[in-house]
């Protein structure tokens, strides 16, 4: 499978990664080869097969929204690269 520059630029944007020109070329080649191999799945006829996203049947389970944990703001903020006034600090996004 041939991967274009546009496709690589698009998936890099989706995954929020910057690629150098050299990395972009390498990614094109790697993804092309890997997806080319993945295409062998098409040999298997899957018409009418129900897609299986999970091996055990999962369904929504409803319960009351009760708070069971205690106040842990400081604990949860302990790993934050930047924090202020008990909140995560990020660059200004609204003027």
């Amino acid at each position, binding site marked *: 499978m041939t991967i274009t520059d546009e496709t690589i630029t*698009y*998936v890099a944007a989706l995954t*929020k990664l910057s690629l150098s020109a050299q990395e972009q070329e390498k*990614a094109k080649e790697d993804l092309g080869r890997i997806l080319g191999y993945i295409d062998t799945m098409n040999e298997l006829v899957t018409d009418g097969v129900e897609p299986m996203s999970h091996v055990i049947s999962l369904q929504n389970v409803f319960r009351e929204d009760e708070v069971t944990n205690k106040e842990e703001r400081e604990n949860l903020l302990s790993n*934050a690269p930047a924090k202020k006034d008990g909140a995560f600090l990020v660059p*200004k996004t609204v003027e």
Partner: protein
Amino acid sequence: MDITKLTALELGRQIRAGGVSVREAVEAHLAVIREKENDYHCYITVRKEEALSRADAVQEGILSGQYTSPLAGVPVAVKDNICTKAVRTTCASKILGDFVPPYDAAVVERLTAAGMVMLGKTNMDEFAMGSTTETSYFGVTKNPWDITRVPGGSSGGSAAAVAAGEAGIALGSDTGGSIRQPSAFCGVTGIKPTYGTVSRYGLIAYASSLDGIGPVGKDVADCAALLSLISGGDRRDSTSVPQDRFDYMGALKGDVRGMRIGIPKGYFQAGLDAQVADAVLAAAKVLKEKGALLSEFDLDAVDYAVPAYYVIASAEASSNLSRYDGVKYGFCAPDHKDLQEMYKRTRTEGFGDEVKRRMMIGAFVLSSGYYDAYYNKALKVRALIRQSFDRAFENCDLILGPTAPTTAMKLGESLSDPLKMYLGDIYTVAVNLAGLPAISLPCGCDDQGLPIGLQLIGKPFGERDILRAAYCYEQETGGAFCGRC
């Protein structure tokens, strides 16, 4: 007596009988770590002082009757993608290089409650993506049998630590073979349990519909004991199966009379090393002589397990790893001018090549225009693979085959060709796609003196079947094949 050569259960017995103190057990393993760790690099973090003070507390708990588990006092290593409260948990990634979890994973709570002593956190492929432990940001782990070779992966640190006597037993995780393949390469035993058997609460996610935690030990009984300890429902993991604790020790009977063992013909075709094939078929013969009924069959759709696996695992990874944004925890790239640049620079500088590659594959197969051709197609292939196993299990109790197509590769051979590395997962990934339990245990040695792994695959929640056959085989053959490394 060398404490680090004892099985975990034997060490536990001696500790409870008073022949060995918990401190002596911990010190013996720390001595091996001190001596060998520069060569092997099994650990990302070793907790020497904490383990020693914990040892004394556990000793008191054993004497007072608080800890009665067969594994109480046994030094354990934990893979570094399993959260440990107040102990750095990195996933072998720069992006989580300084992450200190504010809570314990469910399995870690269980180890603690049983009086086990954690020695440290083991090396792995970054975010468990890899089959060699070479993609770790913190450097490679070497195979204790031959330090020019990889230990396998992604739980390479856990398997190497157990093989080298740097831990009595360990926890690993398995998304596409990451417990079984390193266990095979390092000559130890490892179990990937049925999906839902062990709580994933606190396991840092790679591919949530495939991920599972399991034991890596010196023999089958050690693995059965640790699995009994960590199994059971947990309301914090909605995919864990709500059952009481599972006891697997009862399955270790030493006979397989009447067990029906299926051997997939396709597993013994091109690509499988001849010495591995011979050792695995010789193991089948041992089980036959003990009364098992062998039959060959076709496991057709499984030929497409590797491509389906890399689509599904990458898709789930691209979603799971979107949480690493430099805001809540972990690495954040300095000197950004706005939020978008912060995200991009954090992720670009924080993730390694293999993780980026899989996130991009995942984003591609989920993108509009390709979703049906790749992601949805892979989910259909997954359904056919599960059906293929279900049909096989109408006629057999377990499936026997190799764990990996070769023994341990040379360091550096795999990284340059990701596709070649992916193909090495051919015997393991189908088990994760179908959610089945499987064990890898040593069944021989090649002419280089490297261990060969035998894989036994069970029905959903058929852990007792694979343990029974594995234990019988081990009892019959003595377990060790290549001499201790």
